[in-house]
């Protein structure tokens, strides 16, 4: 799905490589509404509107570990002079009612860094889900092959 890597993500990548800044122990995939359209300048979850928690969705989203299991596809593209990494399939199951439990559906997914306060989590990448998604009790919301692209 169409995606954008934030400038903060590029900044952090350089820090890990060239200034030995410790890589995060965990990352997260969170869902947001269409209330705010993210741009490359978007820095933290506090700048966007997360979907309502409940019915199978935990505030902050699903936790990932930065390893070969959760980021299972590495690509070096010499044709277009880019690199990509893809996330394993991420799935939420609605339980006890609709997911999101209230409010607008999920229009964006975000790959974020860790922070105890969700609003302070840095956004590495945003993925356009094309249209607001709401799933009913027992149904799944699946995001397959989320991809971070570095030009």
């Amino acid at each position, binding site marked *: 799905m169409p995606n954008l890597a934030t400038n903060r993500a590029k900044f952090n990548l350089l820090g890990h490589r060239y200034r030995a800044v410790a890589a995060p122990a965990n990352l997260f995939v969170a869902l947001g509404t269409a209330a705010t359209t993210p741009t490359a300048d978007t820095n933290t979850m506090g700048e966007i509107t997360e979907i309502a928690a409940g019915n199978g969705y935990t505030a902050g989203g699903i936790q990932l570990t930065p390893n070969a299991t959760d980021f*299972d*596809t590495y*690509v070096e593209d010499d*044709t277009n002079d880019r690199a990509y990494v893809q996330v394993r399939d991420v799935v939420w199951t609605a339980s006890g009612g609709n997911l999101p439990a209230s409010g607008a559906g999920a229009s964006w997914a975000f790959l974020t860094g860790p922070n105890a306060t969700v609003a302070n989590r840095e956004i590495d990448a945003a993925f356009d889900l*094309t249209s607001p998604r709401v799933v009913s009790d027992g149904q799944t919301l699946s995001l*397959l*092959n989320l991809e971070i692209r570095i030009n």
Partner: protein
Amino acid sequence: MAYLSDLFPPDDARTEADAEGRAWFTLDPDVVYPYVLARIAEALETGVAPPAIREQLLPRARALPELAWAHAETPRDELPATISPERLADRAAALDIVRLWALELQHAACGYVSRGVHIVKRPAWRD
């Protein structure tokens, strides 16, 4: 082609050098992209595709104008000089779908293991 995996030969040098022990494969656009473009044309006509592709990529493929696929098959340096930025963007979107489609096929061919893929330089397929 006997097997789908034949499209994506192993890259032994990159596999040996990978610090995480990840297997690497080669994706040559000159070999793989024409094959994938034919699969996309079939899927657009029949609606039949592997589940992950049908759910994620086929709707994006359907949303593109037919001309985008003709331009995707045209080498970058043979495109008409008068092609508009909009048509170039459509071609880039089509080639992005081709790449993702190929990666999904490759992932299935290697049993969905964690792996690396090296797309070799083929300027004709540049977006």
